[in-house]
């Protein structure tokens, strides 16, 4: 049984080592200024907030219903919706709308913050929280809620969640869209995707917003922690074109925005007056040998072939050429700093063409073979680079273009013996097993039987919620995955947020752990 009762710790700005000393100075100065301002002016002006902060999102907003969000777009939701828990700067779940939790087998008991109301005046209580969780379970879009059987209110401030199976990551899942709390009126609204109502520090101003262009948020007058409202106005711009977003940042039209590893983010990285923040978490690009028992491509059943492929990839050159120097080589599913990350695995499949050729020579396929690999436009250059590496050891990878948005679906079919995907490195390691390891895993279309070692580790990882207990298990699992080499990890790209110098020097800007958004609680405008 694990129990946590803790107030949210003070937020700490995530930044690189070099900037830390300077940041401390800033924080000290700010703290003194704030203390002085509060002393002189009282708290009412601060509670109302002042100034505007403008953030640009690279994806178009599809829905403002968090429980129907299947992809990006969380920065549009965070101003309005608060989660039961949130991630602390070191990645641990801490209470937000909750005040504590207890996990006992299949029973999760969560105590809720009292005196919180939604922006429309409806009270937030256990009954509403249960309705939210049950709605999420019924809609079944959110991966993190798939282990939940049901939720119910024990009393006004105690929520009970019944799990279908042990899930040590359930609290972690409640830090994201699965834990966002919607007002009962919003849940009953057929147009909830355009009329969000939550408990967050800001409310969505539909009249001022221009759908498809910019979403405007203004302070929530009923917010339970008014001192954390630092802005009079928060704007999230939809700027999917990378160059347009870059120009908006250069000209000061936006204060910050998120980017993928592309030429524009590389420009930000070297432009005076701008800074590219490398956030915690990110995306791991990897190749999946789906047909690892050799049903369609017999060579894939040969461990020597798989190891040869893993050694044939020059990850450093790949990161520089294809991901503009913004990615680093990867040999495991977790990112540096993650609790499951194992430094011992660094370099386990370092680029070594001689070794790769040795493995191929040892295999039953010394003369090589060919296979088909699905591709979507965004991965085309990556796959062309990989095809070049594999060609060096006699393996021909035929790139088969697919329609954008269909890669995940085709990867779950037996149409292709291998595929390529990204994995969010901040995802709990239990999802590795659900996606790739178990016989019925989502991306195990050939129903390959997992090794006893892998299966055992995957199950052990579910037996505790204590990451101190789980970390060594998942490190062993990563080592075993490396040994079996059916998941070939290529590069890790951190979460990239482009900001102006003013934003970089704003001590109230706190980047959310593992997310491409800024924590709005306490955020103040740059000027």
């Amino acid at each position, binding site marked *: 049984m694990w129990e946590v009762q803790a107030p949210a710790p003070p937020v700490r700005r995530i930044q690189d080592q070099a900037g830390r000393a300077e940041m401390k100075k800033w924080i000290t100065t700010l703290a003194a200024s704030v203390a002085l301002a509060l002393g002189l002016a009282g708290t009412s002006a601060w509670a109302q907030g002042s100034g505007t902060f403008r953030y640009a999102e690279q994806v*178009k907003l*599809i*829905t403002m219903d968090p429980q129907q969000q*299947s*992809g990006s777009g969380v920065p549009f939701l965070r101003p309005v919706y608060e989660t039961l828990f949130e991630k602390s700067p070191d990645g641990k779940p801490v209470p937000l709308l909750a005040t504590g939790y207890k996990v006992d087998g299949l029973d999760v008991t969560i105590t809720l913050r009292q005196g919180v109301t939604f922006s429309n005046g409806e009270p937030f209580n256990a009954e509403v929280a249960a309705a939210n969780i049950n709605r999420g379970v019924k809609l*079944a*879009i959110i*991966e993190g809620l798939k282990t939940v059987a049901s939720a119910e209110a024990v009393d006004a401030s105690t929520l009970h969640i019944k799990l279908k199976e042990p899930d040590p990551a359930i609290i972690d899942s409640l830090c994201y869209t699965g834990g966002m709390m919607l007002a009962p009126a919003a849940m009953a609204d*057929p*147009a*909830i*995707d*355009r009329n969000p109502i939550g408990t967050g520090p800001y409310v969505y101003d539909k009249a001022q917003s*221009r*759908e*498809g*262009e*910019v979403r405007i948020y203004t302070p929530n007058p009923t917010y339970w922690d008014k001192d954390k409202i630092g802005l009079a106005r928060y704007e999230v*711009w*939809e*700027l999917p*074109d990378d*160059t*347009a*977003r870059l*120009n*908006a940042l*250069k*000209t000061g*039209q936006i204060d910050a925005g998120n980017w993928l590893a592309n030429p524009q983010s590389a420009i930000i990285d070297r432009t005076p007056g701008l800074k590219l923040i490398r956030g915690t978490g990110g995306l791991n690009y990897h190749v999946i040998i789906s047909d690892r028992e050799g049903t369609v491509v017999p060579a894939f059943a040969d461990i020597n072939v798989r190891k040869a492929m893993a050694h044939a990839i020059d990850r450093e050159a790949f990161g520089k050429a294809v991901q503009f120097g913004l990615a680093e080589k990867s040999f495991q599913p977790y990112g540096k700093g993650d609790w499951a990350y194992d430094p011992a695995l660094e370099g386990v499949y370092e680029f070594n063409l001689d070794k790769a050729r040795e493995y191929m020579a040892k295999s039953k396929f010394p003369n090589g073979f060919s296979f088909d690999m699905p591709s979507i436009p965004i991965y085309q250059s990556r796959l062309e680079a990989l095809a070049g590496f594999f060609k060096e050891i006699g393996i021909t990878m035929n790139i088969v273009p697919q*329609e*954008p*948005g*269909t890669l*995940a*679906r085709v990867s779950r079919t037996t149409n292709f013996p291998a595929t390529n995907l990204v994995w969010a490195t901040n995802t709990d390691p239990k999802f590795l097993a659900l996606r790739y390891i178990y016989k019925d895993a*989502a991306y195990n279309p050939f129903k390959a039987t997992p090794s006893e070692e892998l299966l055992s580790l995957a199950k052990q990882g579910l037996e505790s919620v204590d990451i101190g207990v789980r970390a060594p298990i998942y490190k062993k699992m990563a080592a075993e995955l490396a040994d079996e080499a059916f998941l070939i990890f290529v590069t890790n790209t951190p979460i990239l947020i482009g900001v102006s110098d003013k934003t970089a020097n704003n001590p109230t800007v706190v980047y959310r752990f593992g997310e491409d958004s800024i924590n709005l609680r306490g955020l103040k405008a740059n000027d």
Partner: protein
Amino acid sequence: MLRLILQRLLALVPLLFIVSVLTFSFTSLLPSDPVDLIIGDNGTQEQYELVRERLGMNQPVVVRYFQWLGKAVQGDLGTSFFNSVSVMGAVMQRLPVTLSLTAMSALIAILIGVAAGVAAALRPQSWVDRFATLGATFGQAVPNFWFGLILVAIFAVNLRWFPATGFTPITQSPWEWLRSVILPSIALGTASSAAIARQVRSAMVGVLQQDYIRAARAQGLSARRVIFKHALTNAMVPVVAVLSFQITVLLGGALIVEQVFAINGLGTLAIGAVRQQDIPMLQGLVLVMVGLVVVVQLATDVVYGLLNPKARPS
């Protein structure tokens, strides 16, 4: 003239029907599936089937088409597959943006094109003519999105005279509206101004050699009066036909230029709908664009008739 307008409006009905059938058929043939995007990477087969059923996509294309048509004739173009946004609402929200961008581009194209064409025609083979011809060639050769990027780099990023992205509604601030449409309109209108300049030059050179122009000059009329009242009015007749085509080109070009300037017009909506396979949105957009083109052509015919009485239908 009234008959012409009525005829064109009546012809719009079968045209829209044919276009709607073609759009529906072609989008149904696309291999990608919007349901995949809706349920996300972690969606199950069960969810997939549920969403397909909710969207009516498990029904035959013909049935879906006639269901859509039944609502469309009542003015309901349906709702996006992805959210509760009505197609008509989304189109109407963005139509003024694209129209104002197109109108400003057309204005710039006419101003530059007519001025350059007249200047070149008045001094054929002179350096003015050669410069105008060279400018027209350059204007037609340069892609509008590239020109837009150059304009942004110079006038928005470096000089900070105009915003780099976005659009301000004229109702919010006429001055900011003007600032927000100037650069995209120049990017968009330059190629059309080149085409108009060529047409004006050619037509003006021909008209200036006509007997009635010589007669007007012999009567002692001022050069300005001869050029602008007598020559240009007649030279504009073929130009109007070109202009009609150019406005259609501008409408299409706006789809690309809107991306460069992050303007939330019909182009941005269309590209999003194509990417998502949002069939109702695509269907509505195509119909509106076709309607716009027909209206532009109708307006051109009316103006053509006003300029040239011989061209009016009996």
